[in-house]
């Protein structure tokens, strides 16, 4: 179809043209009504599409004109407007005869459809029926004018708005311009600053570049000048090639490094694959590795010890430093040997010292005395094995503890501490030798004789005390025993001496009495004769003596004298060795005989019945017979049994055998001695009495009962007659045990 487009805007014309060309329509476009009419008169068109608002002749006018033209009125007239879009406009358009009123924007398809439809309809209608007559008349004109005015008014308003808007915009624009110029000014300042900065930066950068260049130069120089052979290798596939080296490297090979430049490892070290591995490892780790090896310098043929340090330098370099440590290694060897030797010597010396120390410790420990070192604060610094033994504590338990508070009995602690203080102050004179008891772990007390010394430093300042102490407990006990024995011995001698002294006057008394009795006897002729010569008879003399009881008194005197003599005889009898006879006796039997004697003995003064005492026998089997004076030994046994019985009955019964009175008799062999024990469960003997119990005339019995000689005599029988020993053990409240030891044979000691 041929289509005429009428629009004053080129852009609209083009647009429509484009739309319609799509549908293969022929299109002619004009800018106003007048031109449109021209075109219409010139050629045939199928459809007219027109805008409304156009200069000169507007769309409405055109439509009227077209529709008034007889030839043209059949052509479908389509309005296409953007501006006259209101309902009144459409109404006017249609009243003017338009076929269609379209508002922009138009959909091209829609437009095409409308056009097709209109064309079709037109064809169908035919020329006769043609389109409705346009309205003429004033109404239409009025409407037209109305619309025009309306539009104009609208336009004016629009224009006014626009003007106002434009003014506003201009104002704003002015403002903006002002602002802009401000901003521009600012910006300009900023720009100036930035510019300045940039210039500064550029200057800096130039400077940096210069410095870098300088630095590079220096580095290069350094690299060259490093006294350590340095080689720079660049990664080249799996291998590396030498790209640089320094003077130090060159000098090693006497200036021949040049030949290796640009070569790869494989080329330089064909038979040493481990080298390239090292490179690659360094590269892989991106770090530093060090390898030590013996190395043959290729060019010079020397064998040296080298440490190679590989350093990764990004992006693809490995820098190698080598250090010739041949001398160092040798020196190290020498040093090691010297060191080893030194170590050996030190070990030897240490061993010697340890030995000496051990020896010293041994000496300390085999010493039979205890050795104690005390610090000024009274704590123990050192003690030897003997010391530990004596005290009953371990080394660890003793060291560090206060010596006096722990190991010296309380009652003398103060005095001993004082002595220590004096010693530490330097008073050696009086305190070089000192005795004090110590407390053992199990609560015993041992007497120690100390020899004290002071440990001083080089300047003579006193540091500690060093004391060696002997355990003299036993010795002291033995001394006491000896003193006791001596005392007893001297007392015995005294007693014997006294007895001897008594014997003489006693002899005088008894003999005198004998003579008296003899010379008043009627049996003597001499008496008769002398009596007659005196003018009396011997009978008369006797009669007088009898009536005056003189005979009785004489006899009484004799009896008293006899008794005294018996006592002395008793005491002295055991010392007459010449009268003794020794026979081999069964001790057990002897004991039993004595028990029988005790049971049968009838003592007027007795306050006990021996038969009520339980006798326990613990006789050793196979005990050899002992050479002894049986009578005397029996005397001893009897004496002990009687003492035991008296003790039991005089006090509360002891606890040993359920409080029943009991005497235990034991015999046993100890080396070449026979040991006899007589134990009772009586009240026991207190220590102060026990010490004196063998003393002659010492008795605990009341006056008149006993002579106090029994134990003394027994003691002498055992010790002097038989060369044995006699001892007593007792715990007050727990009973008493007398112990007699007799040698098996006499004459052997």
């Amino acid at each position: 179809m041929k289509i005429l487009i009428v629009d004053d805007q080129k852009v609209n014309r083009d647009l429509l043209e484009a739309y319609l060309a799509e549908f293969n329509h022929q299109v002619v476009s004009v800018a106003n009504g007048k031109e449109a009419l021209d075109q219409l008169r010139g050629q045939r068109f199928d459809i007219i599409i027109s805008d409304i608002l156009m200069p000169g002749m507007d769309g409405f006018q055109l439509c009227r004109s077209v529709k008034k033209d007889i030839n043209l009125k059949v052509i479908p007239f389509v309005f296409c407007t953007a501006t006259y879009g209101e309902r009144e406009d459409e109404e006017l358009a249609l009243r003017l005869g338009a076929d269609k009123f379209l508002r922009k924007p138009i959909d091209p398809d829609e437009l095409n459809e409308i056009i097709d439809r209109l064309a079709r309809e037109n064809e169908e209608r035919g020329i006769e029926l043609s389109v409705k007559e346009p309205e003429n008349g004033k109404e239409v004109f009025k409407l037209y004018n109305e619309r025009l005015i309306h539009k104009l008014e609208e336009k004016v308003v629009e224009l006014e708005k626009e003007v106002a808007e434009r003014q506003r915009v201009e104002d704003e624009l002015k403002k903006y311009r002002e602002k802009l110029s401000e901003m521009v000014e600012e910006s300009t300042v900023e720009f100036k600053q930035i510019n300045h900065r940039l210039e500064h930066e550029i200057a800096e950068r130039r400077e940096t570049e210069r410095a870098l260049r300088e630095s590079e130069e220096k580095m290069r120089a350094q690299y060259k000048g490093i006294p350590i052979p340095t080689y720079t290798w660049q990664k080249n596939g799996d291998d590396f090639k030498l790209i640089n080296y320094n003077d130090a490297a060159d000098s090693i090979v006497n200036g021949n490094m040049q030949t290796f430049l640009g070569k790869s490892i494989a080329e330089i070290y064909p038979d040493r694959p481990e080298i390239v591995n090292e490179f690659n490892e360094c590269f892989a780790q991106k770090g530093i590795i060090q390898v030590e090896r013996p190395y043959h310098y290729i060019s010079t043929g020397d064998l040296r010890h080298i440490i190679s340090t590989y350093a990764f330098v990004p992006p693809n370099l490995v820098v190698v430093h080598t250090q010739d440590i041949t001398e160092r290694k040798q020196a190290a060897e020498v040093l090691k040997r010297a060191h080893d030797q030194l170590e050996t010597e030190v070990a030897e010396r240490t061993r010697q010292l340890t030995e000496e120390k051990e020896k010293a410790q041994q000496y300390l420990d085999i010493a039979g005395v205890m050795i104690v070192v005390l610090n000024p604060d009274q704590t123990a610094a050192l003690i030897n094995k003997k010391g530990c033994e004596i005290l009953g504590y371990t080394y660890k338990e003793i060291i560090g503890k206060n010596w006096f508070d722990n190991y010296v009995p309380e009652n003398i602690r103060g005095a001993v501490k004082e002595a220590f203080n004096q010693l530490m102050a330097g008073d050696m004179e009086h305190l070089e030798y000192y005795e004090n008891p110590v407390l053992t772990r199990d609560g015993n007390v041992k007497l120690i004789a100390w020899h004290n010394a002071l440990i001083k430093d080089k300047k003579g300042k006193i540091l500690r005390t060093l004391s060696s102490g002997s355990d003299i407990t036993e010795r002291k006990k033995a001394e006491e025993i000896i003193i006791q024995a001596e005392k007893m011995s001297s007392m015995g001698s005294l007693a014997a001496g006294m007895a001897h002294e008594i014997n003489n006057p006693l002899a005088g008394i008894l003999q005198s009495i004998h003579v008296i009795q003899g010379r008043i006897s009627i049996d003597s002729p001499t008496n008769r004769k002398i009596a007659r010569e005196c003018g009396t008879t011997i009978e008369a003399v006797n009669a007088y003596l009898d009536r005056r009881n003189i005979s009785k008194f004489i006899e009484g005197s004799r009896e008293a004298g006899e008794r005294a003599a018996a006592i002395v005889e008793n005491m002295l009898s055991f010392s007459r060795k010449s009268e003794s006879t020794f026979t081999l006796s069964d001790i057990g039997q002897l004991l039993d005989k004595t028990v029988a004697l005790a049971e049968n003995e009838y003592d007027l003064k007795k306050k006990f019945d021996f038969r009520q005492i339980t006798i326990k026998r613990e006789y050793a089997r196979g005990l050899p017979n002992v050479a002894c004076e049986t009578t005397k030994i029996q005397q001893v046994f009897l004496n002990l049994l009687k003492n035991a019985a008296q003790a039991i009955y005089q006090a509360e019964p002891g606890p040993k055998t359920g409080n029943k009175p009991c005497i235990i008799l034991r015999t046993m062999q100890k080396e070449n001695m026979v040991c006899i024990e007589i134990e009772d469960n009586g009240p026991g003997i207190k220590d102060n009495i026990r010490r004196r119990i063998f003393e002659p005339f010492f008795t605990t019995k009341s006056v008149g009962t006993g002579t106090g000689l029994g134990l003394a005599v027994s003691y002498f029988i055992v010790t002097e007659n038989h060369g044995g020993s006699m001892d007593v053990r007792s715990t007050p409240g727990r009973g008493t045990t007398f112990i007699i030891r007799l040698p098996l044979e006499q004459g052997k000691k």
Partner: protein
Amino acid sequence: MNDNPIRVLVVDDEEVVLDTMTAFIEDWGFRVFTALDGDTGLGILKKEQVDIAIVDIRLSDYDGNTFIQKAHRIQPGLKFLIHTGSTSYSIPPELTALGIDEQDILRKPIRDFSALQEVIRRKAGERE
């Protein structure tokens, strides 16, 4: 009374002993000479024939052993009895050589006088 009484010398430093010994011995019918010390005793021996000497070991001037030896030189046939209060006295070898033994020791105080008489008689009767 014997015609030939046994002649006894008693040497003792205690008078009471001398007196009482004299008394017994006389009552037994023996002849008694007494000396308070060794010298006196030796003096008597030089003048008188004595059968038996009863000598106390403890004398003021000599000890008994020495006296006996001297006495023996004066009268070799003299018999000796030693009368002593000492409990530990035993015959020294020089006296054993003279035929004196343990049996000849009389311990003071003598209580069995009849025995003493027997001893004196026996001893004195042992004439060589």
